[in-house]
């Protein structure tokens, strides 16, 4: 059977092509264009080849920011995912407390990011902040403007406060999809609390956890506003993550070429890591199925 061919159909996708071109492709290509050129102002550009990329990949500044970024994403994933699962498990399954819990959980997600930063910036201050002042009264020397560890603590705690809710809500949705019969069967089978979690709840949360990990990884890897408001990347460079460094380079120093090269590398890293996460986590499920399938075909 012949498929009908009508080249006029291309016109139907034209609006989308234009939209995507103006919103994504052309800006991205501008960045690519900057990344291979140099300028001394006056809108005059010179071909620089891969020089900026070469510089970037050998720069200690970039390596340090990248390492900080990995450390930050790793820490918040290790904290937020288990904490989110635990809270979701502890949430009520029915009754009037359900909407109460859900709304309370959603609140941090509704606050604008720079407001979150401001809240914690004030909260942690030793002179007027409730947290900083209380810690000072208790004899703890907490100062996030001068101590790198303190700065990290406040930024990590802030991110956990801000984003654990997302993990909770996703996990809770996964848990809600488990029919009562599963819990009843588990009771009849004499399963303990751990077995119920390991063999019923965790497998059912597998998909939403994949989404939670991906979202939290991507967001945390691109984090900018909150640490910028709280610490401005300091003290020193101790909380200068990739995005903060990038903005410093592009807007602070106006090094367009190096900043463009860094943007592209940054973009590729996120793309690559997200792809790895996704493949690993979906294959963890598919592998099992494939193995079961293979076992079936053996007579």
């Amino acid at each position, binding site marked *: 059977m012949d498929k009908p061919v009508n080249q006029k159909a291309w016109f139907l996708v034209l609006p989308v092509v234009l939209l995507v071109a103006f919103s994504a492709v052309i800006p991205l290509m501008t960045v690519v264009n900057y990344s291979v050129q140099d300028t001394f102002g006056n809108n005059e550009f010179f071909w620089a080849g891969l020089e900026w990329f070469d510089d970037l990949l050998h720069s200690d500044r970039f390596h340090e920011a990248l390492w900080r970024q990995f450390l930050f994403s790793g820490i918040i994933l290790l904290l937020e995912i288990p904490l989110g699962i635990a809270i979701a498990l502890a949430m009520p399954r029915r009754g009037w407390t359900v909407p109460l819990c859900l709304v309370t959980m959603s609140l941090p997600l509704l606050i604008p990011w720079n407001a979150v930063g401001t809240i914690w910036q004030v909260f942690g201050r030793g002179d007027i902040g409730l947290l900083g002042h209380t810690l000072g009264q208790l004899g703890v020397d907490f100062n996030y403007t001068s101590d790198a560890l303190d700065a990290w603590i406040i930024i990590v705690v802030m991110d956990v406060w801000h984003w654990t809710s997302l993990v909770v809500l996703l996990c809770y949705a996964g848990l809600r999809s488990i029919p009562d*019969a599963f819990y*009843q069967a588990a009771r*009849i089978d004499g399963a303990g609390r751990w077995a119920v979690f390991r063999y019923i709840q965790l497998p059912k949360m597998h998909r939403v956890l994949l989404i939670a990990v991906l979202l939290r990884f991507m967001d945390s890897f691109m984090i900018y506003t909150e640490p910028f408001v709280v610490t401005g990347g300091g003290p020193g460079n101790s909380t200068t993550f990739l995005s903060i460094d990038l903005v410093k380079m592009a807007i602070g120093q106006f090094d367009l070429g190096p900043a463009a090269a860094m943007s592209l590398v940054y973009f590729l890293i996120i793309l690559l890591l997200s792809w790895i996460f996704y493949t690993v986590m979906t294959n963890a499920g598919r592998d*099992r199925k494939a193995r*079961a399938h293979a*076992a079936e075909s053996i007579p």
Partner: protein
Amino acid sequence: MAEIQLRGLAHAYRPNPQGPQDYALKRLDHTWRSGGAYALLGPSGCGKTTLLNIISGLVMPSQGQVLFDGQDVTQLATEKRNIAQVFQFPVIYDTMTVAENLAFPLRNRGLPRAEIEARVRETAAMLDLTATLGDKARGLTADAKQKISLGRGLVRRDVNAILFDEPLTVIDPQLKWQLRTQLKQLHKRFDFTMIYVTHDQTEALSFADQVVVMYEGEVVQMGTPEELFERPAHTFVGYFIGSPGMNVLPAQVEGAVAQVGGQQLQLPRVYRDLPAGARIELGIRPEFVQAGLAEGLAARVERVSDIGRYKVAKLSLGALPLNAVLPEDMQLDGDETRIAFDPAHLHLYVDGRIVSGEGR
């Protein structure tokens, strides 16, 4: 296997039940004989699942006791009651293999490894699951999954009873038949006490020795399939069992004479002192209505449908609709016919419940 006794059992999901309408399960005394195959039949929401969950301990009854072999287990936790239950939707542990699924209840009870393996193999053989033992359970078909759910009950030697909560709902029709036959064979071989909840009368009648019919939280009749058919104790039973269901005709009854659909009918028995103001109805199964007679009650023929081995005639007796089952080769000519009711199968119901008259 144990005898299960229910004593003064009742359940309301609300904390302070005010009247009978608040009870999901009304007061009930009942004994399930050890080794019996019972079906609990009734429409959705009639309390069958509640009753089942009370027996397995998933629901704590508001009143009354549950006894296993004379021992009160009302307060005992589910896992200590040694009950197996198969649910409407197959419950399997997705990440485990079939063998691990079957071993799960035994592992939770801390049995030695060698014994677990032996029992799993034995149970798999009983259910024809041996070939799939190493497979992941999640890739299997619904009927295989349901067999695994059943297997997790059978694998335990100490099971007091196996409860089924509409287990064949999600199974393909031809497999349903196979699975039901297999269940019956297992029951014959191993003599389990089985309680089988369903809203499908064919399933109930073909599976059980004793059928318990529930309606609005009450057991309205318990008996063999024949008893339910021949002498429904409640108009609901008559209507629910049989296809088409029993004809229920509002009537005025005076002694042995009934006024029904504007005509007079001689009853086979005498009914005295019927309560005034009560709902009086005559019940007659379509199978026991004869049509196309020379004399009898006058009825109008609305429609005759041929359903294969017999025909169903939709008649009206005055303003009352009435079904009659006709032999396959019978023709009803014209719009009018004369009908008669088989006196041995004509019953009288007062407010829905059967009343025995006196012989004439």
